[in-house]
């Protein structure tokens, strides 16, 4: 049996997507900027994909840009918005648990003279609205808070946080990295007061190397890539037509029955957590304490990510032990003897030091089956005692 439980790293592209990408690559190879028929046909693919995404987000077609992926979307949103609005103020806000695509870009902006506030998070990984409120100043021009944390699955109430920003600083822009939540839950940027939102193709069973950035028509953003003026000058470079077509189709297919699949994922997660925590010395991270019982607490988190700590077991070793049984997961923190890199998210939620290097991430997708979860649980219950016997001091 095989269990691919690393869907937050990447997902398997849907067969329909692969076929469609192939078809576009082979048959619709025109340059969308060309004036002839071949160009027009390629442009049609772009328009189709753009409309598919704006339908899902319930917003106008003109505000979705295609990029090379989540990282570029985050870079464009943050650098483009910060620099376009620097006259209004030089203060930016983000959290300590963001993806490196946001954190490293913020570090770059600090070098460009911006002041950045990094918010602490609650022990369950969410941002406390009170903490955000205190951090806002009249010089704040941009707030970037991720929707779902990629390591522990904590899910912020983005609508509430964005509302708060708009009330206190009407001029400030609100960006969310929705790479882990797009395709898992419904998101309506307009209603939620989101000005910019990053998404990625390969996390929703689409191709790699393609992503999108939603920008509300009111937001002032300047481009970071210059060239032939494609996508209204906001993102120059000949469009990746097959990738874009694949992203559009994947989004459409995933959102066709999103309510149902979200429910199914929550049920899987609940079942997995319940059995997992029955194993001795195993704890699950990122579940709110005040959720009113485990069942409703899980509903406050993302439906597809489980972060678990296995006391006395090294994450890397457990990962490879699972790998030998064809179970694929991620280490919460990649830690090698000569190059320690401890997870910032796990540190930020105040995880016990001894567990930092004992934490794994299991992430599901619409394709994850109950049998895979059960198989993983049975392998875990076999392997963990074995590995604990030989733990390093």
């Amino acid at each position, binding site marked *: 049996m095989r269990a691919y439980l690393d869907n937050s790293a990447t997902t398997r592209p849907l067969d329909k997507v692969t076929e469609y990408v192939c078809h576009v690559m082979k048959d619709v190879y025109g340059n969308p900027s060309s004036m002839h028929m071949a160009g027009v046909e390629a442009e049609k693919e772009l328009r189709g994909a753009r409309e598919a995404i704006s339908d899902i987000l319930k917003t106008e077609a003109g505000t979705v840009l295609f990029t090379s992926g989540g990282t570029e979307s985050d870079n464009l949103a943050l650098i483009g918005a910060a620099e376009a609005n620097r006259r209004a103020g030089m203060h930016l806000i983000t959290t300590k648990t963001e993806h490196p695509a946001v954190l490293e870009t913020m570090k770059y902006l600090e070098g460009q003279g911006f002041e950045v506030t990094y918010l602490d998070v609650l022990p369950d990984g969410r941002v406390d609205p009170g903490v955000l409120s205190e951090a806002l100043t009249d010089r704040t021009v941009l707030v970037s808070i991720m929707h779902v944390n990629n390591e522990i699955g904590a899910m912020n109430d983005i609508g509430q946080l964005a509302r708060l920003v708009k009330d206190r600083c009407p001029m400030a822009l609100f960006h969310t990295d929705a790479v882990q939540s797009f395709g898992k839950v419904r998101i309506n940027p307009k209603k939620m007061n989101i000005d910019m939102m990053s998404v990625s193709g390969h996390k929703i069973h689409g191709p790699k190397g393609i992503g999108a950035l939603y920008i509300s028509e009111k937001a002032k953003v300047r481009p970071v890539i210059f060239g032939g003026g494609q996508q209204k000058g906001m993102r120059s470079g000949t469009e990746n037509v097959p990738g874009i077509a694949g992203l559009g189709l994947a989004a459409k297919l995933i959102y066709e029955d999103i309510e149902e699949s979200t429910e199914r994922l929550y049920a899987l997660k609940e079942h997995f957590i319940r059995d997992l925590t029955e194993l001795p010395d195993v704890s699950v991270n990122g579940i709110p304490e005040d959720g009113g019982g485990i069942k409703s607490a899980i509903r406050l988190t993302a439906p597809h990510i489980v972060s678990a700590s296995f006391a006395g077991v090294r994450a890397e*070793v457990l*990962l*490879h032990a699972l790998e030998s049984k064809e179970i694929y997961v991620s280490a919460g923190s990649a830690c090698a*003897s000569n190059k320690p890199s401890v997870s910032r998210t796990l540190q930020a939620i105040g995880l016990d030091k001894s567990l930092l290097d004992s934490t794994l991430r299991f992430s599901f997708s619409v394709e994850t089956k109950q049998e895979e979860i059960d198989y993983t649980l049975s392998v875990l219950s076999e392997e963990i005692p074995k590995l604990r016997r*030989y733990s390093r001091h």
Partner: protein
Amino acid sequence: MKYSTFLIKYAEIAVKGKNRYVFEDALMHRIRLVLKHVEGDYAVTKSQGRVYVDCLSACDEDEVIAALKRVFGINGICPVVKTDTEDFESLKEEVVKFVDDQYPDKNHTFKVFAKRARKTYPVSSMEMNCAIGEAVLEAYPSMKVDVHKPEIEIHVEVRESIFIYSKQYAGPGGMPVGTNGKAMLLLSGGIDSPVAGYMIAKRGVKIDAVYFHAPPYTSERAKQKVVDLARLVSRYTGTICLHVINFTDIQLAIYEKCPHEELTIIMRRYMMRIAERLACDNGCLGLITGESIGQVASQTVQSLAVTNEVCTLPVFRPLIGFDKLDIIALSEKIGTFETSILPYEDCCTIFVAKHPVTKPDAMIIRRSETKLADVIDELVEKAIETDEVINVI
């Protein structure tokens, strides 16, 4: 004027006696092998105690030189212009043209080294030296003769053809691989062992290698790193037959039954025993390790003695007197450093005790090993059965 020929100079082989041809033939064989990876057709020939590489088609001179620089036994590589001109006047003209091609800037001192191996040529070497020197001086008045320390050496050799050359690129020295038997290298993912393999191969020894793999404690990537290192070393040594041995069960048995501070030393004794078995089965006449006195606890003189006593084959430790910095410099020179420092755990580091013994007593270690008596023979046999052979080219 394009070079068509390289003159290969060798030092140590030249002093051999009646078996000199063995070394020359091995050298030619190695040259042919490395040139297989360079575009173009080449003829490698031997004549009057010299080896020549003729380019039979268009070739990239820099690539040929780079390849030849990795052939042990070569001391110098001279790109040579071959001329069929028999007339001495036109030979002088060719040399003048050669100087112009090679040294656009004429502010140099020079000396002509003529050699008349074919005694039927009408001009003696002394006469050639004078006449050619004069011709060069006449053509380029800014050049001066210096017979003691010339900046430029112009060699003109009259053999079956006439050769003109000036520049010499240093080869690695040593002896052609294959002229001195075969030895088994204990290859880890570290900095030292690839260098040790390089150094022994430089003395003409063919290399096989063994790597001890410990899944799930070491990852597939750690194994791939060792394969990559073997590949880098094989650029000098020719094909390396790499044996990958699964060492996990032996390691766990030692961990369970022996004192933890003796773990590394006992582990290394079993590695040596297995390496020796593999060596004997594969026609190797010695073992090679990257040990250097005092580098770590298992490499003190006491530890080396205790490790050494388990095998009867000679153990070659070419780095024994090297400082770490010297080893790093060598590893950078041969191009293995960047790969060696990739951060994957190898089996030597995973179970390391906080305070390992630094002055082990052979008696005590032997007594500790008796605790393994009932399982170890079987475990060793099993480990040898896991031997996965990878031919690294």
